[in-house]
């Protein structure tokens, strides 16, 4: 038997370091433990339960909207939350909340996934559309402004759509599927942009507690690798393209030192801003009451431009009245 074959035999026979019974199937990036599928499902769910309990994410009786895009993170979040809710009697009234931007063809697959989740997990589903919230579909916006700045509109509108949809549905809380890789990426981007205010906020597991609908991230410490593997034989998710370079940099770091993702989150958490730094003040939009650091929130500025036939208003440096 040559060295290679010997190695294969050894690795095939390596046992799970938790149960010491089954064959190991996965190396956990967080701990470098080699564990079997069964133990993986158990520790994956258990850790999320611990994060929920330790951080007091929910109170019994709360109505909780799960931001559902049809992607892997929110699909796994919906499944795990409804499972834990039953298993540990959180007493939560869970429902799925999706956004339809109104782009022909774009959401067909992901809305199909969300509708499948509604049936599979027995969770009610509400789809809010840009048309319903803002009076415009993205297709109509593109017709009006062309393909150049449409991403600005879509991004600003999407950020608010979940909050507005949750308010519409009288939710007490909104949960999103942001994972540890997402948060590490956001810490890096905020550092690179020098955006101190967002840097301070982005590692908080719950934000907007003073606002109408707090948002929380039960996957804050959950690695993307594990979220991707978790449903591997449970469900199908729809792919979406593109992630920026910070994300790729994070994956490069993870390859060299898997702990890097949690280390970046820890760095973000421990960042202290000196007292002499002037922080942007967070107020309320005078038009719609949504949180805003300006007189009008970005969505209202963009909508104002659209409705007045001046869609370039609010793009780049142009300011609201």
């Amino acid at each position: 038997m040559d060295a290679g074959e010997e190695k294969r035999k050894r690795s095939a026979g390596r046992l799970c370091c938790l149960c010491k019974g089954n064959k190991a199937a996965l190396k956990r990036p967080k701990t470098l433990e080699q564990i079997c599928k069964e133990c993986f499902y158990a520790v994956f769910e258990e850790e999320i339960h611990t994060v929920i309990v330790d951080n007091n994410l929910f109170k019994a009786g709360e109505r909780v909207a799960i931001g559902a895009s049809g992607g892997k993170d929110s699909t796994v979040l919906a499944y795990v939350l409804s499972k834990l809710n039953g298993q540990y009697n959180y007493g939560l009234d869970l429902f799925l909340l999706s956004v339809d931007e109104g782009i022909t063809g774009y959401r067909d697959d992901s809305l199909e996934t969300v509708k499948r989740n509604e049936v599979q997990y027995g969770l009610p589903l509400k789809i809010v559309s840009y048309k319903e919230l803002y009076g415009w579909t993205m297709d109509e916006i593109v017709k009006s402004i062309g393909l150049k700045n449409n991403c600005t509109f879509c991004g600003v509108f999407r950020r608010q759509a979940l909050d507005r949809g949750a308010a519409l549905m009288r939710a007490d809380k909104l949960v999103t599927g942001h994972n540890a890789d997402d948060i590490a990426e956001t810490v890096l981007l905020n550092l690179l942009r020098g955006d101190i205010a967002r840097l301070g906020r982005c590692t908080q597991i719950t934000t907007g507690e003073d606002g109408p609908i707090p948002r929380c991230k039960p996957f804050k410490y959950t690695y993307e690798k594990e979220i991707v593997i978790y449903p591997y034989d449970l469900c199908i998710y729809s792919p979406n393209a593109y992630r920026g370079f910070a994300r790729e940099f994070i994956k490069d770091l993870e390859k060299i030192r898997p702990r890097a993702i949690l280390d970046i989150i820890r760095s973000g958490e421990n960042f202290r801003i000196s007292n002499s730094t002037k922080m942007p003040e967070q107020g309320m939009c005078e038009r719609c009451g949504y949180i805003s650091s300006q007189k009008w929130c970005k969505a209202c500025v963009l909508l104002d431009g659209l409705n007045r036939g001046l869609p370039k208003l609010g793009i780049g440096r142009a300011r609201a009245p």
Partner: protein
Amino acid sequence: MEPCGTLILLNFNGGLELLCRSTKVHHVDVELKPGADGLIMKDLLCWIRTNLIKERPEMFMKGDSVRPGVLVLVNDCDWELSGNLDTRLEEKDEVVFISTLHGG
């Protein structure tokens, strides 16, 4: 009969199938390099890049390995447990590639 290579079942997921004619499952016959005594993941990746990937190879590979963020399972097992690029493959093994670099 011609000496044939190693039969491998490939499965591309999470968007990677878009790089190979939108087909997820591929049954392939990988010829061995001259002088090689068996197929390893490193050679399989080379073979895939040359023979299967039709566009944007940088979405799949970086250097001589997969792009960070692409998960690899060999017979339902994380390839980090079997030696990554040095993992030895046998006839009828199943290799799954899942890209994590897409929206959530």
